[in-house]
């Protein structure tokens, strides 16, 4: 840990939006260390209208749980988690999927560029090879290329859910999307606000039952990109 970089930051809030993830949320939370790069970590789980024991299991693993009484979508859950993180004095926020796709061991690498002052927003970049389902690989590749064409900013992976940003950056990228279009909107707002962005290559694990972005979500994201482009993105 570099002693020069900690005084500016107090606490890392790991926001985990979850819906019906009782089978995996415990494993995800158990993997998150109590400190990252010397800073205390607060796990904030947003139970987005689950009908299973997601919230209960998250609480058993020491997370603070915020429950949406009805399902609102990933974007809304992320927003609730970030608001809770800011209220709990977290000045570095990390977004992490609840389905076990991300490795908690990548957290230090994701927050490092923020703690060193190199970046305001850090994006995880998945490898579009190996275990990633073929449709997801094609969709991610297509959306990433389209994003470059439409907004002029080039990222390796515009849809990865593992991200970190400072509390100041959060106010600049604060999104309206309540669904899976949130990742794209966040990047558009980051580009508009000229945030310093960094990318970190991460490992991903794909389980038998894929619960992430579907083809319909991909079309919604495309629609959101067109809408954002028309509104001056």
């Amino acid at each position, binding site marked *: 840990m570099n002693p020069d970089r900690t005084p500016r930051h107090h606490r890392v809030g790991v926001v985990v939006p979850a819906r019906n993830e*009782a089978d995996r949320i415990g494993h995800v939370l158990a993997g998150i260390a109590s400190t990252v790069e010397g800073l205390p970590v607060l796990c904030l789980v*947003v139970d987005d209208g689950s*009908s299973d024991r997601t919230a*209960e299991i998250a609480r058993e693993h020491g997370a603070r749980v*915020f*429950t*949406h009484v009805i399902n609102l979508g990933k974007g809304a859950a992320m927003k*609730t988690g970030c608001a809770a993180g800011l209220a709990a004095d977290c000045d570095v926020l990390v977004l992490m999927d609840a389905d076990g796709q991300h490795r908690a061991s990548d957290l230090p690498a994701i927050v490092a560029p923020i703690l060193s002052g190199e970046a305001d927003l850090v994006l995880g970049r998945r490898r579009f090879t190996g275990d990633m389902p073929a449709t997801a690989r094609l969709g991610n590749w297509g959306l990433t290329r389209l994003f470059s064409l439409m907004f002029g900013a080039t990222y390796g992976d515009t849809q990865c859910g593992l991200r970190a940003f400072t509390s100041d950056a959060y106010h600049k990228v604060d999104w309206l999307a309540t669904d899976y279009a949130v990742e794209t909107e966040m990047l558009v707002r980051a580009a508009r606000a000229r945030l310093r962005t960094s990318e970190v290559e991460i490992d991903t694990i794909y389980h038998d039952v894929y619960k992430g972005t579907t083809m319909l979500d991909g079309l919604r994201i495309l629609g959101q990109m067109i809408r954002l482009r028309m509104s001056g993105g």
Partner: protein
Amino acid sequence: MTGIQLLAIAFAVAMAFWTYRTYRRRDLLAAEAALWFAVWIGLVFVSAFPDLLRNVVGPLKVARLLDLVMILAILLLSTIVFVLNSRVRHMERRTVELVRRLALSAEEPDGNSKQPVGQVQRDPAKTAE
């Protein structure tokens, strides 16, 4: 009077009755009910006395009376769709805000969550996936 005229009048009367019932259930404001009654009464008049509107067809450069009715209907429907869409969006935004506020306010200062308002206690054995 032709069959299509009778059909249009019957439709307008049925819709006027439905509007009245909706108003009695207090699902419509008086002003909204009055607006809808005006639409249905207008439809009855146009259907029963189509000659009344023949004089306006010419100056508006519309070929037939039926075309004028269709154009007016499309304009009315477009307006209704727009108003409904904006109201649904508004309600959606307010619902999201309400649910998020409930989630944030349901947590106690010590970090323990209270049962959120409206949350039904579930039997884990029945709902576990």
